[in-house]
């Protein structure tokens, strides 16, 4: 039966599934990467995702316009990011704790709004699968990569964009400087506060899109706590990816592919107990982290407060 796994249908299924599953992780983790590279840990990602998911869903249902839904999710995510930035940069709150606070806020508010404004679980017509001309006809590869919905494509496109910004632009240089040595950056005229505001708001915006990608593209439904801790995994993936966009992509893909593998294992009746199968992505992630920990280095100022004149 393990040989079943190697059949073409199954392999294609696993890979296509893995790509889809990776999408929300990518948005959230890329956004978090910016924040963490600038020295800020945001644990509220899951809450931002839930607010983004609800907003996109509600706007899409009420207006029938999916892009308006995405836009609203971005606005909501940005607002939450703004609040987080204020709390972190101006109020110097302990980042881990304030992040959890925002998570709980997003979790509760999204559910409250859902109960008051919608009241019952329903579906929406989300982003449809788009077949990229020519490319989607390539056997195997076409099916896996080029028959997804538009948000999936954008998520993957984000990776090289994020890499470019972080490594090849002045903005990226400033971000990295603020994350490594904010005092030095400050002395050179870089506004630490402004950079951090930017990265945190950007992170919030992308988390909002991550949530929207679930509620109006992948699953097309909103339900209380539908992210189910996904945001926290996304934060972990930033560590896993060594704070580099391509690393984050690798981490998201690894995690999601193993997840989709365990789904197929169960469906094919391969005699691995379901409990073990379900653990696989998490165990693998931990193993890889342990293997690579000595070779990566976090931004030096991560989670440390910065106050001018310290």
């Amino acid at each position: 039966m393990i040989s079943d796994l190697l059949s073409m249908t199954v392999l294609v299924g696993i890979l296509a599934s893995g790509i889809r599953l990776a999408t929300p992780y990518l948005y959230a983790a890329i956004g978090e990467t910016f924040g963490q590279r600038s020295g800020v840990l945001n644990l509220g990602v899951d809450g931002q995702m839930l607010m983004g998911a609800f907003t996109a869903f509600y706007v899409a249902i009420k207006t029938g316009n999916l892009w308006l839904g995405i836009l609203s999710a971005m606005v909501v995510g940005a607002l939450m990011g703004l609040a987080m930035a204020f709390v972190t940069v101006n109020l110097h709150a302990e980042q881990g704790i304030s992040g959890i606070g925002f998570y709980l806020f997003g979790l509760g508010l999204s559910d409250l709004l859902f109960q008051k404004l919608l009241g019952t679980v329903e579906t929406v017509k989300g982003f449809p699968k788009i077949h990229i001309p020519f490319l989607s006809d390539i056997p195997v590869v076409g099916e896996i990569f080029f028959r997804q919905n538009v948000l999936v494509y954008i998520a993957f496109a984000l990776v090289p964009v994020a890499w470019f910004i972080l490594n090849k632009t002045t903005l990226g240089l400033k971000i990295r400087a603020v994350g490594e040595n904010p005092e030095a950056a400050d002395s050179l005229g870089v506004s630490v506060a402004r950079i951090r505001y930017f990265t945190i708001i950007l992170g919030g915006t992308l988390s909002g899109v991550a949530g929207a990608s679930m509620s109006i593209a992948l699953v097309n439904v909103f339900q209380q706590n539908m992210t189910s801790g996904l945001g926290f995994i996304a934060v972990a993936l930033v560590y896993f990816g060594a704070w580099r966009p391509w690393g984050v992509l690798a981490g998201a893909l690894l995690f999601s592919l193993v997840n989709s593998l365990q789904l197929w294992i169960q469906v094919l009746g391969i005699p691995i107990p379901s409990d073990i199968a379900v653990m696989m992505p998490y165990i693998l992630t931990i193993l890889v982290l342990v293997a690579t920990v000595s070779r990566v280095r976090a931004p030096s100022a991560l989670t440390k407060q910065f106050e001018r004149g310290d």
Partner: protein
Amino acid sequence: MKKFRLLVTVLLLLAVLLGACTTQEPAPAVEEPGAEEPAMEETKELFRVAVVMPSSINDLAFSQSMYDALLTIQSEMGGEEAMEIVYSDGMFVVDDAAAAIRDYASEGYNLVIAHGSQYGSSLQEIAPDFPETSFAWGTTVDTFGIDNIFAYEAASDQGGYVNGVLAASLSKTGILGVVGPIETGDAKLYVDGFVAGAKATDPTVQVNVNYIGSFSDVALAAEAANTHIAAGADVLTGTAQMVVGAIGVAEESGALWFGTQASQTELAPSIVVANQVYRWDVVLNEIMDLIGEGTFGGTSFVIDLANGGEVLEFNPDFDIPADVAALAEETIAEISGGAVALQAPKFEDVFQVAVVMPSSINDLAFSQSMYDALVSVQEWMGGEGAMEFVYSDGMFVVDDAAAAIRDYAAEGFDLVIAHGSQYGSSLQEIAPDFPETSFAWGTTVDTFGIGNIFAYEAASHEGGYVNGVIAASLSETGVLGVVGPIETGDAKLYVDGFVAGALATNPDIQVNVNYIGSFSDVALASEAASTHVAAGADGLTGTAQMVVGAIGVAEESGAMWFGTQASQSGLAPANVVANQVYHWDVVLKEVVQMIADGTYGGTSFVIDLANGGEVMDFNADYELPAEVKSLALDTIKGIVDGSITIVFGE
């Protein structure tokens, strides 16, 4: 001339004066020392009764029942010399009725009966003005605390229940129709009792209820009956005076009729099976005895099967099969003996319930099933005035849930429900600290041996089996997919039952099972469903709140969906075939009854197909082929009567 005319005038005046004198009522010869003298049996003083009624004395229903009762008592007492009866019927305008009531009271009637719950507020004003008059008011239990008002009510759900049992036993189409007036008072009681009796006899019977919004609109009642017949009903019932319209329609189409309040046999002797006849005289006798002793009010009475105030009268011209008649007698005996509790227990204070749940109350699954049950129980108990409930949902973090449970107990809630097996260890610590609070925990059978914990569970494999049977019968690809949460508890039971049912129907069917490892991860559930579809499944099922993700995939791919815990038909009306719906209220009602009797825990309950705690609900929008539907119904019957044993295999 003048003198003559003066003489005539004086004589005339004298004549008039004398005439006036002689027609004067003689003053009471005997002075009664006071109204408390109980020596009434000997004195044959005329007892004068006046009654005000909203409809005609020959309405074959509400008003007739009271008028007939008065006639019965009058003849028992010896006729018109012993008891005088006057009535004002057709008093549907409350102000007219109030005027009549006041007039009767001021004319010195001993007992004035306001036969209609709508007369209550008028009576509340009038009665205190006439402390020497006794008033009786129904149907209600409220005497307003005024000591010259008696209240009387009918436990009409009892006869309704028996009628329902009979109706379900005799129906050939399995569809019953109810024509109700307005959803209130003894009408609602009767209908609810009828539905309960029918369902208890045959869980698959369909009872369509129509409240036409009027007590008197005969034409509308006839139309309602026509609608029922068109929908396939072959047995009808109804209450209030407008039913004569419905009875006519029933007779025309050959449907059977069950009556209440009065005997309606004479209207259609060929189709009326039985009537629950109100014998108000049972109550009136007691009232009149009390008046004789000098008590003019302050008590409320109920007529029921036990005290003979309600009597099931069978139409002698209708042939009931012997076993059905025996079942009816048995049911009457059980109800009279108190074995069947139809009405909610009454508590001194508002009964307060709190529930803690792991997911949202509108998750279309686990938590929603409990929330819906509480709403239903609240209605059963009499609304917010009788029972209040609060909830904390989304408590997937066990410590938060434990804090909530402890808080509720400390705030003095009567019943605290921990709706999630993960709350068990917390509950084990908390319950002993609050011995006066009753706790309920599910899904499990373990009460930890603690005296104030009830446990409840779902035999979800039963509905799972039925779903599996239907799925296997309908599948064209021969592949089915299951999206499960974690391999435990009622989720595992459901999945195992589904697999067993599918294999029993088609041994070659392939059922792929996938436990995604989470109760809430919608995205993963969606992927799992996609995986099943890619593997060829055209029928999917799953349990727990994450299934909404899977249902979306089913809809996209055109696969069938089979639901459990709550009805998921609304989410994908074109794809959902059937749902096993949990009715936790079956358990909650027993728990409330036990708390009323002073037991706060120590028992565990199971909902299943037999006790109506699990109900197979077929999606009306899905065209199920007739032979599959009857296979499903036979399967349900087989599980309920034990002829089908569910065997879990590999």
